[in-house]
């Protein structure tokens, strides 16, 4: 059913079911964005989603979210291994958007968290999708 939606430069982006649903579904995309915040439960779900994605030949990119300090990134990187990783700083504007029921990109497009996600999207737009390079990538601190 959804096959006809592909091609022609089209992008299909799927917000997967949370938790174990993410793990089951993560293998069927070209690219899986594994979103993890620095909590063990979150990292565990991301870890299993990555294993599923890798098993099914999808590229993997880790989105390290709600990052307050470098130790948060390291915790995620250590647990999730050698995949490209993008850092999204903890951002009150995103929490505010959530409370107001609005899009973060409309509430404050220049806030640090929104800018980090926007930069990632611009890279995706430029590159098609990025191959998992296997090398540690710039995480926004460079």
């Amino acid at each position, binding site marked *: *059913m*959804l*096959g*006809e*939606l*592909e091609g022609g*430069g*089209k*992008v*299909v*982006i*799927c*917000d*997967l*079911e*949370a*938790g174990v*649903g*993410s*793990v089951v*579904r*993560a293998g*069927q*995309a*070209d*690219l*899986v*964005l*594994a*979103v*993890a*915040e620095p909590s063990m*439960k*979150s990292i*565990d*779900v*991301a870890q299993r*989603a990555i294993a599923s*994605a890798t098993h099914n030949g*999808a590229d993997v990119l880790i*989105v390290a*979210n*709600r990052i307050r300090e470098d130790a948060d990134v390291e915790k995620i990187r250590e647990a999730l291994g050698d995949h490209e990783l993008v850092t*999204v700083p903890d951002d009150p504007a995103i929490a505010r*958007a*959530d409370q107001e*029921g*609005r*899009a*973060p*990109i*409309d509430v404050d497009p220049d806030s640090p*968290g929104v800018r980090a*996600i*926007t930069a990632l*999207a*611009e890279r*995706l*737009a430029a590159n*098609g999708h990025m191959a998992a390079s296997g090398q540690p990538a710039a995480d926004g601190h460079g």
Partner: protein
Amino acid sequence: MKIAVAGKGGAGKTTVSGTIARVLARSGRPVLALDADSNPMLGISLGIGPEETERLEDMRRALDEGEVDHQPEMEGLVETFGTEAPDGVRLVVVSRIDNVDPPCP
């Protein structure tokens, strides 16, 4: 390009999905955003507002309970189960049942 956004509930999946969809649409690509979360809030992150998001949530519930079926044609799919979001993103809710096969995305 098929992108799946995975993670624990509350990790920021939906914020990442919605924001990326908006930016890719601004770059001129046709973007279809699929909401497969059992708590379908992608509409909020895309900027369609709480009321329209709630309408889609009701639709999602009806899908899961088998009261309505997804249609095979894209146009019908968006018309019935989706909505137009800012920057031209098309948002469609996907049933958990449909999630088994065919795949999402």
